[in-house]
């Protein structure tokens, strides 16, 4: 078996599973920052109860995120030793910075947030969830710095067969860092919003602690509407624009543009084929792609035919992932807008269908995150570092396919087990519902 393919599969599996949890952590922790602030400043027992309930769920999600994240810190060395040697001078620093500035912060203050409610003053307790949110976001920043450097390397020279740092800030703020950071972090906020909205919708359906669950639903839906709109414009749009300039072959692949053209069309729907290269059942808007990428409907957009065949990413996977992500992004706006309208009209509480839809929408932002990530990473192939190092040259030469296959099976079994127990406990926790507002807080 091909060790490169196995190593890629192992990486995709472990990152993919891990990447289900941090978006929820980031999203929920920022929402809790606002909720705990309202509870504290308004002396509102309802918000405190929401905070307690979702705070405990955050603890559960965070634990699985930590457990699966540990693998990531070591995996570059175990499976991608040649890559690690090639980029260590640049790539290691963001990972170390993530530890120093983010991991310590979020994990230390999460302990205080979960167990310190009765031990410290209200402002220190609020500060603890704020630090969790800040830490989780800084963590996202540094890991996206590392990933973006693979996509659009900057601030380096190649010396003695490795990339050496010439300018730290140029490497950190390489051309794609900020657009990717904003796009990904906002996706995390959407994930948190849909999680809270879905769980609250379930509680409303079951008639549990209605005062608390209705407030949580209202908050989550409105929050979700704002972040869903921001995700498309400006964040998604900007990300696409930068992509068109920095990685034209990836841009061509996700957009399904086979040959270069002026007035390039935007494919709304199509079935892509690699042999021969063409889009079938094609619905398109002429000129829109040129306009989105370069602000001019006559601009020339490079197609896949301009690049050497062996340096073009796989088309089907990138195209399909990207387009489904966009469809989901549109859905997020529509459903939260509709739910906001129903909340405004006060008719949502009777609308069982809408509440059920919100409940079953919980996994959709997480799926969108995975799809966006697949489009970004598969779209970079065959490169592990864009135009500098190919993925096939990056694996550990001392690790055989048997060992990799063993670890794939090992982590596969562990992750299925973890996922199963996690869902079981989460469902139990949600079914139990929030604790009623305590008399002490209702009075104060």
């Amino acid at each position: 078996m091909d060790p490169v393919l196995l190593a890629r599969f192992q990486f995709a599996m472990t990152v993919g599973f891990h990447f289900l949890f941090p978006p929820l952590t980031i999203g929920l922790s920022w929402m809790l920052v606002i909720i705990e602030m309202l509870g504290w400043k308004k002396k509102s027992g309802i918000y405190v109860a929401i905070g307690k309930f979702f705070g405990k769920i955050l603890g559960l999600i965070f634990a699985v995120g930590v457990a699966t994240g540990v693998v990531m810190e070591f995996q570059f060395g175990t499976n991608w030793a040649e890559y690690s040697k090639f980029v260590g001078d640049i790539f290691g620093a963001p990972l170390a910075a993530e530890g120093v500035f983010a991991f310590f912060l979020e994990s230390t203050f999460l302990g205080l947030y979960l167990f310190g409610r009765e031990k410290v003053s209200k402002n220190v307790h609020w500060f603890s969830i704020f630090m969790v949110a800040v830490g989780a976001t800084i963590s996202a920043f540094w890991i996206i710095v590392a990933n973006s450097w693979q996509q659009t390397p900057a601030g380096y020279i190649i010396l003695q067969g490795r990339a050496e740092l010439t300018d730290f800030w140029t490497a950190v703020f390489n051309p794609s860092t900020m657009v990717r950071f904003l796009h990904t972090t906002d996706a995390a906020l959407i994930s948190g919003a849909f999680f809270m909205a879905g769980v609250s919708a379930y509680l409303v359906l079951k008639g549990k602690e209605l005062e608390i669950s209705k407030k949580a639903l209202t908050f989550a839906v409105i929050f979700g509407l704002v972040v869903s709109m921001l995700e498309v414009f400006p964040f998604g749009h900007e990300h696409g624009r930068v992509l068109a300039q920095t990685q034209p072959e990836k841009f061509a692949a996700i957009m399904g543009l086979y040959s270069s053209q002026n007035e390039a069309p935007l494919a709304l729907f199509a079935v892509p084929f690699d042999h021969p290269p063409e889009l079938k059942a094609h619905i398109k808007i002429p000129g829109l792609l040129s306009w989105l990428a370069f602000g001019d409907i006559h601009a020339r957009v490079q197609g896949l035919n301009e690049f050497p065949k062996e340096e073009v990413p796989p088309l089907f996977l990138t195209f399909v992932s990207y387009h489904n992500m966009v469809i989901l992004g549109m859905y997020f706006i529509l459903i939260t807008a509709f739910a906001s309208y129903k909340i405004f009209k006060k008719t949502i509480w009777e609308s069982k269908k809408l509440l059920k839809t919100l409940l079953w929408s919980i996994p959709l932002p997480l799926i969108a995150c995975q799809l966006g990530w697949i489009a970004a990473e598969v779209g970079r192939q065959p490169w592990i570092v864009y135009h500098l190092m190919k993925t096939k040259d990056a694996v550990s030469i001392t690790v055989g396919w048997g060992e990799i296959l063993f670890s794939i099976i090992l982590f596969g079994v562990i992750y299925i087990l973890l996922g199963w127990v996690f869902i079981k406990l989460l469902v139990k926790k949600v079914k139990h519902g929030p604790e009623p507002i305590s008399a002490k807080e209702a009075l104060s």
Partner: protein
Amino acid sequence: MIDLNIIWFLLFGVLIIGYAILDGFDLGVGVIQLFTKDENEKRININSIGPVWDGNEVWLLTGGGALFAAFPIVYATVFSGFYLAFMLLLTALIFRAVSFEFRKYSEKPGEKKRWDLAFGLGSLVPALLFGVALGNILRGLPVELKDEKVVSSISFLGLLNPYALLVGVLSLVLFTMHGAIYLSMKSTGRQRDRMISWINNTWIAYVVLYSIATFATFFVAPYLFKNMLGSLVFWFMFILLFVAILFIPVAARMKKFGLAFISSSVMIAMMIGLAALSLFPRLVPSSINLENSLTIYNASSTPKTLTTMLIIALIGMPIVIGYTIFIYRIFRGNVLITKDSY
């Protein structure tokens, strides 16, 4: 002359020592959990480290990141060379990380017992592997050049050689003692009495094992002792280690558990410090030819990166240490079980 490479050797040592002292007692508590029968005592064990264990484990993650950034050749060579051992370590850490929350929300006693086992074994395995890894480094790894690429290929069974296993059992006993001392600060009554006898028993085992291990090192890696006896730093660390070891049972008998904890922390720091001093300036000695060893010079990043990393560490670590102390102060004293506890 102190240069950037030496500074990073020291800083990496500080990270490893920080990990061993802080997560060391977490791992020890996990091992003791395996031998605890009473549900209330089990909960006190878990909750004694509940709010802090995750922050403690970050020392390991940051150590990994710092090694990647400062000495990428070591990170790549050792981690890929220890492939299966790392997979075992990661499996243990994964189960341990989820066991706290998963145990809390499991209601059936059987399920709780299963997560206790995950917590216990998830602590025992890393405590053992910490020493196994150190033992193998001290003994030297087969570092060689293959097609102009630095590699070190060693089988999983090759890692489990008698010397490395001896150091592994030593670190297991060491962390268990450290955990027992920590728990004696956090518990009361019968549980605390039991912890005192844990301290005494593990202390004896520790002294015996450490003596044997030191003796064995003379034969396994004699070059480590070169230039040591004339070094002032060596004697300073050695005497401090000696005093710290002797003071632990005395402090435990006087029921000064805080002092005992400081002693065992100093002891851990000095043990790792002495190992680092004997390796210096090597990071990974080559068992094939000492000339092939990975050192702080031939395995490092550029001065530019080392400087950048130093700035990150100088800004970040004082803040980390500041709020870590703050959190420990909030949760000081005996464990109180409330409805929010694990």
